[in-house]
């Protein structure tokens, strides 16, 4: 079968169904920020609503709370979701990062235990990867997990855990082999945040909200069946997750298409010929990102895999987001500095894009080394 960029009748029907449901169910008033306790619970309730109607995780198997659609349909759903102005996904770290990783690496018991609760927002997850001395250099992790019978004893400190202030569970990398160095001897472990020995310190971000947290662990006992994947092989598990994160799942095109459409609305409100080219370039970027993602999922559906392309993707969306938001701020002119305007919030959020999920500098190294074959180096 040759290149075909038209949607099938099934795909169009799925889009129509999603659109109808979203139009009827998306809250008329925006929810409070999910980086506040109140907003977090409002968003949890919305996740429950999504789940109960079968829209929480459309591409997951039905048994775990999804509806088993393919990746093209997932992209379609995402387009409709953001087009409808629906709330941000407070559960995204679980749903879009840990979820797929669990399906690949989890035991049947783990899948049955964690996925349905995750889909229903009974458990909301945060990541526990970075540490004070392990940011861009993730292999510098020092937090330890010591095997003690049928438990691991965890100790150490995780930081920059997004949504960590109010989350229920954390998935994180711990050093299980203290003699191993760098990315060897690490293990992925799932940790409930209400265990004895866990202390969560919320951290306020640029906008003043507690968008992330530090998590301190002192002799925290976690049963071995909460290990994800093999012992000492956590790096592979994490890299698979990071591939999802940077690749297709964290920033679906629908989000930027909606932002670009809003940018054009903003331009129409106050047309500024000087910014015309920047506005249309932003819209084109969102379109190009959409096409690129359809090509990626088509390749995945045809049996392909994602490698260093996820780094290419991450650089593109993070820079596009900054371009869209800052162009809108320039359209606002002197009003841009007024706190609480939606574009300023968007800009502050977009600033984190080139930093988190692996800085763009690290991604450029990955591209140069893995795609172009340039030699590794410290520099």
């Amino acid at each position, binding site marked *: *079968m*040759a*290149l*075909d*960029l*038209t*949607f*099938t009748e099934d*795909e169009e029907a799925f889009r129509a169904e999603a659109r109808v449901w979203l139009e009827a169910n998306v809250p008329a008033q925006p929810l409070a920020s999910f980086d506040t306790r109140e907003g977090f619970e409002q968003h949890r309730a919305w996740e429950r609503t999504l789940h109960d109607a079968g829209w929480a995780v459309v591409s997951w198997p039905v048994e775990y709370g999804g509806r088993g659609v393919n990746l*093209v349909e997932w992209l379609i759903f995402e387009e409709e979701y953001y087009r409808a102005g629906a709330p941000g996904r407070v559960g995204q770290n679980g749903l879009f990062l840990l979820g797929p990783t669990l399906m690949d690496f989890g035991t049947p018991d783990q899948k049955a235990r964690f996925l349905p609760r995750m889909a229903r927002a009974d458990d909301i997850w945060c990541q526990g990867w970075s540490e004070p001395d392990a940011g861009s250099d993730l292999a510098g992790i020092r937090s330890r997990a010591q095997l003690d019978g049928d438990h691991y004893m965890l100790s150490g400190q995780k930081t920059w855990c997004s949504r960590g202030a109010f989350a229920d569970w954390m998935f994180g990398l711990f050093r299980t082999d203290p003699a191993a160095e760098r990315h060897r001897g690490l293990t992925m472990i799932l940790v409930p945040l209400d265990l004895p020995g866990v202390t969560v310190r919320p951290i306020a971000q640029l906008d003043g909200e507690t968008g992330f947290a530090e998590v301190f662990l002192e002799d925290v006992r976690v049963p071995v069946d909460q290990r994800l994947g093999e012992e000492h092989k956590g790096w592979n598990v994490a890299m698979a997750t990071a591939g999802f994160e940077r690749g297709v799942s964290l920033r679906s095109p629908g989000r930027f298409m909606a932002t670009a*459409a809003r940018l*054009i609305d903003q*331009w*129409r409100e106050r*047309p500024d010929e000087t910014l*015309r*080219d920047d*506005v*249309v*370039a932003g*819209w*084109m970027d969102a*379109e*190009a*990102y959409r*096409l*690129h993602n*359809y*090509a990626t999922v*088509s*390749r995945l559906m*045809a049996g392909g895999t994602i490698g260093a*392309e996820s780094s*290419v993707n991450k*650089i*593109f969306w993070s820079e596009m987001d900054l371009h869209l938001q800052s162009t809108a701020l320039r359209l606002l002119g002197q009003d841009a500095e007024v706190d609480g305007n939606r574009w300023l919030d968007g800009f502050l959020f977009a600033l984190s894009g080139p930093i988190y999920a692996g800085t763009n*500098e690290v*991604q*450029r*190294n990955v*591209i*140069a*080394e893995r*795609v*172009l*074959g*340039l*030699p*590794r*180096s410290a*520099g």
Partner: protein
Amino acid sequence: MRFVFDEDASAFRAAVRDLLDKECGPADVRAAWDSDAGFSAARWKQLAEMGVVGLTIAEADGGLGLDETGLVLLLEEAGRVALPEPLIETTAVGAPLLQALAPDRLAGVASGDTVVTVGLSHCPAVSGAAGADLLVLERDGALHAVAAPDVDLTPVESVDHGRRLARVDFAPAAATVIAAGDEARAAVALAFDRYAWASSAVLCGLADRMLELAAEYAKQRHQFGVPIGSFQAVKHKLADALVKLDFARPVVHRAAFSIARDDPDRAVHVSMAKAYASEAADLAARAALQVHGAIGYTWEHDLHLFMKKAWALGAAWGDAAWHRRRVADAVLPRLPR
């Protein structure tokens, strides 16, 4: 929605790459620059034998009967070697135009005996005019098909010495007209879009090759005791150009599909393709030159063969800014679809 090329397309692409790797190295491109026609008739024949030249011509007329989605990967391959032959002019633009308006004039095209080019009146010069046997020329709202002996050429030198631009004079007559009125207008618009889109595909191939040359050089060249490719300044420059290229390709592929299906948003899709591909090639050229340093600035080194085609095709048929303006004119008043 199935945004992936099938195995036949990949196999065809691989076969063309094999041929061009053998037959169109940098020395061959230089030879073409120095030749009268600006290209090699022998290599054009080889491409014809593979079906490439007549790819867009109906099977009944000796072609493969494929459309733009079947041609786009081969145009990328043409870009990778800076192919001097008129694949854009004949296969991407001339043949489909004749197929639609004057299929009787297609004789000899698929076999490589008749080289075609198309001249549009709002463009300053006709590309590939020196080596063309049949010229389709816009004049006063009509399209004329004129044989080479019946035109006068005034050469215009392009920065890409393989392009052979010329201003073309001829005597329009009733017998030369192949379309007029609305039909001609639509054909001219479509020919322009095909030129812009096909140039985009070639530009992607050029960018790809320039990044490859730069990466190779960066692995071999040592300064400060290490390969320069181990410096982040080199890595990140090339990585940024690669990101740009990676996002240009699907846009160019979508434009191929939109032309093939006569999508109502064809113009927007083509303009996006030309804008992205022109900028990707420009960025790749800049990055590659900077990574090569002075050696890349010489006539002896091959890099300039690719850079100059990239600059020429980047400017031809509307540059990136022109095409973004065309998108803006469509998008700012109303979003497509």
